[in-house]
């Protein structure tokens, strides 16, 4: 029924002032977020099917796909994409599940929670470099073990990093995706009364882990399903991590597509478009496969529940779970330490575990270039985050004022830019912009960053914004404050901490972006991430250390501010200190 046809609709009690277009904001936000995705997909599909008006190609055809099929590396690149994505996702999910099942509610779990934020904010590229520095034949692990254990006097000729099976790539992805899934799981655990359910099951004779897997996991998984899909889509198609840790001959499909895009040869650009379409199809197929896996696991789970087996003997899993989680966390943190050390290392011969001396020469050498790049990175991230924050708060406030509810479908739309592989629509967007004669400068890069920053800012702020006790608003209204005053003078100040945290998340997401800056910037916009990844093939470890560390600092600093500022502002306000 529409409002007009409802009896008594005119008497609906609702504040009608302060509309001023706020009710249009959710639609506008969707357009800002999904417009580039849709346009980019079209811009990829057209040349894949032979249509590229700029080059005089208007006859649709399958030539690009035939050309793609003729590339000898295709089967292997395709398999690599599938294998690394599925393996990294399954392993990350398994580790997170084990940790939560074995340790939820214990002190160990509290430690895991505290380590999450710093681990999460480390950019993917920096984490990947750090891990490469650890596990390479000339890396830290080999140095510590040499020569007394390995008898290596020089780096062995082993392909550990960039191994053809993609194992290093999978390890790098796991190290970054475990913290992400862990965060999502912890958020979900709060909503399902996990501890009481486990307690009930334990009182019925079930072991803690069995209880968790049978009564908590199904509900938690329903909550984290979309984030898991994001991890799968991301892991299959990531470019920067795959350039650093992934195999080379051939690389994963997405890396190869980006290589073709960079080629001036027109035929290769068409092949790139076809490759991007194939990559999209692969992701859709993998998501379908994963869904089938979910159904199979659920069926097995139901049989397990029906059997009534108590399974009290899962104690053995506990140390394994801790070892896996600690390993993935340590890989990132030790990797960062390695990057830091290389950036100040003087003369450092193999197999010494430490350099002979420390020097600031690397930093001095790169300081001018670093400062310039860091400033550009900061501007992009700050503007993109601010835009995302304004749109998010506007949407949430519109939701609050007009009693809108976020539907399941809207949730999917929010996740869509994270599910559609970047490599599938950014090249199309770039080509469209070139054809339209649009600038591929800073503003275009910022707009592209907003597409990815917005979902994370929204997901980060949505829950705390909605959880705000709206009776505070009722009281303020009753005291004579209009909706805008309630928002600015009561709601936002009370939510200062989560607003700043959401901003920090957005900033970190923007700092970590690689493809949007590379492709939409048209090579004229440099960020710390694009510069760091560009160094990957050169092998100057000191330069890589400096750039990757600067990139990490740029992502980490806002989190420190988001923690510190509310503590300073509200130092005298005990009611706001927890949370």
């Amino acid at each position, binding site marked *: 029924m529409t409002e007009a046809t409802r009896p008594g609709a005119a008497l609906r*009690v609702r504040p009608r002032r302060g509309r001023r277009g706020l009710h249009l904001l959710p639609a506008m936000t969707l357009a800002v977020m999904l417009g580039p995705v849709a346009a980019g997909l079209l811009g990829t599909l057209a040349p894949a099917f032979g249509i590229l008006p700029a080059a005089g190609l208007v006859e649709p055809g399958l030539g690009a796909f035939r050309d793609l099929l003729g590339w000898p590396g295709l089967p292997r690149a395709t398999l690599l994409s599938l294998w690394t994505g599925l393996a990294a996702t399954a392993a990350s999910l398994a580790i997170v599940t084990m940790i939560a099942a074995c340790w939820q509610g214990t002190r160990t779990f509290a430690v895991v929670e505290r380590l999450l934020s710093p681990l999460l904010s480390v950019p993917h590229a920096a984490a990947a470099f750090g891990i490469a520095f650890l596990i390479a034949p000339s890396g830290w692990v080999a140095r510590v073990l040499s020569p007394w254990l390995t008898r290596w006097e020089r780096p062995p000729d082993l392909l550990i990093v960039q191994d053809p099976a993609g194992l290093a790539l999978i390890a790098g992805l796991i190290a970054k995706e475990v913290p992400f899934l862990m965060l999502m799981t912890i958020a979900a655990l709060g909503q399902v009364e996990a501890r009481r359910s486990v307690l009930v099951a334990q009182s019925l004779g079930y072991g803690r882990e069995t209880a968790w897997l049978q009564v908590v996991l199904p509900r938690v998984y329903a909550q984290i399903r979309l984030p898991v899909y994001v991890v799968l889509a991301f892991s299959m198609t990531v470019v920067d991590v795959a350039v650093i840790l992934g195999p080379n001959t051939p690389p994963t499909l997405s890396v190869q597509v980006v290589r073709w895009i960079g080629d001036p040869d027109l035929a290769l650009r068409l092949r790139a478009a076809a490759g991007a379409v194939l990559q999209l199809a692969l992701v859709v197929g993998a998501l379908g496969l994963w869904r089938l896996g979910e159904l199979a696991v659920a069926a097995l789970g139901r049989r397990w529940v029906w059997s009534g087996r108590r399974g009290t003997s899962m104690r053995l899993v506990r140390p394994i779970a801790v070892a896996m989680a600690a390993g993935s966390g340590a890989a990132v943190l030790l990797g960062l330490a390695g990057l830091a050390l290389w950036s100040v290392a003087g003369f450092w011969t193999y197999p010494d575990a430490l350099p002979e001396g420390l020097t600031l020469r690397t930093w001095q050498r790169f300081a001018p270039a670093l400062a310039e790049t860091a400033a550009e990175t900061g501007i992009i991230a700050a503007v993109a985050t601010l835009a995302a924050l304004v749109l998010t708060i506007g949407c949430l406030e519109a939701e609050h004022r007009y009693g809108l509810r976020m539907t399941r479908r809207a949730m999917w739309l929010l996740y869509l830019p994270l599910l559609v592989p970047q490599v599938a629509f950014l090249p199309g967007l770039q080509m469209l912009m070139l054809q339209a004669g649009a600038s591929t400068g800073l503003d275009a890069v910022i707009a592209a960053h907003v597409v990815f920053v917005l979902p994370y800012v929204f997901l980060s702020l949505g829950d705390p914004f909605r959880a705000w006790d709206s009776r505070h608003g009722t*009281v303020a*209204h009753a005291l004579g404050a209009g*909706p805008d005053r309630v928002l600015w003078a009561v709601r936002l100040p*009370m939510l200062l901490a989560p607003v700043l945290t959401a901003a920090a998340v957005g900033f970190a997401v923007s700092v970590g972006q690689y493809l949007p800056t590379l492709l939409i910037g048209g090579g004229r916009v440099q960020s710390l991430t694009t510069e760091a990844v560009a160094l990957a093939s050169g092998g100057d470890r000191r330069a890589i250390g400096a750039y990757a560390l600067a990139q990490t600092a740029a992502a980490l600093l806002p989190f420190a501010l988001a923690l510190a500022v509310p503590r300073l502002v509200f130092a005298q*306000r005990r009611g706001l200190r927890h949370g």
Partner: protein
Amino acid sequence: MAEAGLRLDRLAILGAGGPMLRLDLIVAPGEVLSVMGPSGSGKSTLLAAIVGVLPPEFRLEGRVLLDGRDLTALPPERRHVGILFQDDLLFPHLSVAQNLAFGLARPPRGAERAAAVEAALDEFGLAGYGPRDPATLSGGQKARVALMRTLLSQPRALLLDEPFSGLDAELRAQVRGLVIERARARGLPVLMVTHDADDAAAASGPVVRIGSDARAG
């Protein structure tokens, strides 16, 4: 001539499943009317409707009149209906004085506002508490600040939602007495929803029961 007091004129609140509440009554100035009913009978929804923040899943029929003025279409901030909840709901990011200033109507303006806030603190026995963090006050002090904040906004009616049921019995009786006394002194019509017979008895006003027939039938 305008009729003084808070009038619910053939008020009906309709949920998705049909009418959940029908009331037709008047609360005279200085009178405390208690609405009693079990939890889930729509007591808080009734107050939300009178304040003007009825959730969109409900629909309202009839009118709410205050001193003859039809409030039904007005936004909450222009209704001059004060509300106190069972929690004090002092704004945690503001000091005690800032909370009071938030409520204080205009005029007074400028420097006079500080004087008005001081005077109010004095009157309620909280002189010198202005700069304090509300989280550091005792339960009784918080309740007094919440009442003060509401009265400073010059309401023309007062709604009480299970007032101060978070306080222990003795303190609760004290605060309740204070609220009712102040409201009477200003000639405010007071509508209190509660599930506690003590509250209703203390108010020594008319009692309306809701939601009981649904239970009996």
